[in-house]
C-alpha cells in the first residue's frame, strides 16, 4: 500500500524558509524512512506565492488565480510518498516526524485494483496499447 503524507505548516508565508536545525532534524527523519525501505519519494514545496490555483466551475470552465493569496489557511508545505503495510503503520511513521506547529495528513493512494471493473476497463481502453 502507498500513502501520501501531506505536511501543512501553520506558519505565515514570510516564515516559510525553515531553519538549519529544522532542516537537519527533518533530514534525519527522512533518512530513517529511507533506511526502513519505506520512502518512495518526497519534496518540500515553495510558498503559495510561487504557484497559482486553477479553479473549475460547474461547466468545467477553468479560471487561473495567480499567487500571492490573501487568505491561505490550508497550505501544503511538502509531502512524502511512502510504502506501508497498514494505515496504522503510516500514521505511526507520520507521528515520528520532528514537526512543530504543523499537521500531517495521511492519505492512502488508490491502486488500480481499488477501482471498480468498469473504471479499470475505461483506463485500459483510453490509454491502452
Amino acid at each position, binding site marked *: 500500500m502507498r500513502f501520501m503524507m501531506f505536511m501543512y505548516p501553520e506558519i505565515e508565508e514570510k516564515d516559510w524558509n525553515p531553519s538549519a536545525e529544522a532542516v537537519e532534524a527533518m533530514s534525519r527523519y527522512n533518512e530513517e524512512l529511507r533506511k526502513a*525501505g519505506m520512502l518512495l519519494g518526497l519534496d518540500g514545496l515553495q510558498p503559495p506565492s510561487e504557484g497559482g490555483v486553477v479553479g473549475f466551475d460547474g461547466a468545467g470552465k477553468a479560471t487561473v488565480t495567480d499567487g500571492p493569496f490573501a487568505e491561505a489557511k490550508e497550505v501544503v508545505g511538502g509531502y512524502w510518498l511512502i510504502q506501508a503495510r497498514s494505515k496504522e503503520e503510516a500514521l*505511526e511513521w507520520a507521528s515520528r516526524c520532528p514537526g512543530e506547529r504543523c499537521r500531517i495528513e495521511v492519505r492512502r493512494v488508490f491502486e488500480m485494483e481499488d477501482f471498480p471493473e468498469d473504471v479499470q476497463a475505461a483506463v485500459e481502453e483510453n490509454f491502452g496499447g
Partner: protein
Amino acid sequence: MSEATRAIEAVWRIESARLIAGLARMVRDVGLAEDLAQDALVAALEKWPAAGVPENPGAWLMATAKNRAIDRMRREKTYERKREEIARDTGVLFAMERSDFEAAADDEIGDDLLALIFTCCHPLLSREARVALTLRLLGGLTTAEIARAFLASEATTAQRLVRAKRALREAKVPFEVPRGAELDERLPSVLEVIYLIFNEGYAASGGEEWVRRDLCEEALRLGRVLAELAPGQPEAHGLIALLEIQASRLNARRGAGGEPVLLLDQDRGRWDPLLIVRGLRALERAEELPGPMGPYGLQAAIAACHARALRAEETDWVRIAALYDVLAQVQPSAVVELNRAVAVGMVFGPEAGLAVLDEIAEEKALAGYHLLPSVRGDLLARMGRDEEAADEFKRAADLASNQRERELLLRRAEGDG
C-alpha cells in the same frame, strides 16, 4: 482488533527487526532474541492501551525485553544447570548491563540488522526455512501470514521456524556480518531469499491478490534496506534495481481475464514510472561501483532496456542480446538461453534465434515449459514455416497451465494473431 491493538501492531512491524537484532547481539541466539522481543510485545499489549504508546516505543520495548531476559535467567538459575550455561549467561548479563540501546550509534544498529539478515539467510538452512525466518524476523510477519503467503499450513510453517532457529543454535552460528571472502560467499544466499520472496508474490499462480502484492512490497522493502546497509555491494543495488523495474509492471502483467500478458504485449502506459525511475537509479549505483556486473545487475540492465523503451518497437535488442551473452557466461542456465534466443532472433533474424534454441532443445530444465515451443513457434512463423509453427504452438498450448494463455496459443496455431 481494537484501534489500540492495531497501533501497537504497527509499532511492532516498524521496531521488531531492530529489536530482535539488538537483542541477538547481546544473547547471541536469534531464537532467544525473538522470544524476548515477543515478551516485550506482550507487555506492550498489556500496558499501552491504557497508558498510550510511549514517546520512544523502540527504547521502551528494548528496555522491557532486557528486563525480561534478566528475570528469566535469575529464575532459571534456581534449577541445577550446567556450568558452561551459567558462564554464558553471566557473560550475557554483563553485556546487557553495558549496552545501552538508546546510545547505540546508527551504524551499530545497521550492523546488527545486517547480521540478522545474514543469520536468517544462513546457507545451512533450507531455502524454505531461510525465506520463512527472514519474513518472520525481518518482516515482522506472523506465522499465519507466512503460511498464507506460501500456501502452507500454519503448523508446518511453525515447525519450520522452530527447526530453523534450533539449527542455528546447535551449529553455534555466530551473530555477525561476514567479512571479506566469506561475505562474497554468503551474499548470494541473502539476495536469493529476497528474490524468492518477490517472485512468490509476482508469479501468476494461485493465492489471493493482496497477499501477493504484500509479498512483493515486503521484498522491495527488504531489498532497499539491504542496499542501504551494504552500499558497497553492486549486487545489492543490482537486485533492488531488478525488483523495482519488475514491480513497475505489476499492473500490466495480467489481462482483464487474469491471463498473463507477455512483456512485449503489455500496455506500457500501465507501468509505474516511479518504480522505473527508482530501478534505473539503483542500476546506476550498481554500475558505478568497481568490479564486473553480477547476475542480478545484468538482469536489471536487461529489464532497464525494456523499461526505457516507450513502445515495444523501440526496444534496444542489440544491447539486450549483448547483455544476455554476458549473463549466459556469468550464470549459465537453460532459461537464460531461451531468453537469449528471443533477443538474438530480434537482432539477427529468426534463423539465428532458432540456432540458439536448437542447442537447448533437449534441456531437462525446460521439459514441460510451454515457453520453449511457444518461442520456437514464433521464430518459425517469422520464417514462413507455418505448419511447423502451428505444431509448436499446439505443443505449447498443451503445456500451458493458464486457460486464457492456452486459448491464445491455439489461436496462433490456427495462424491467427
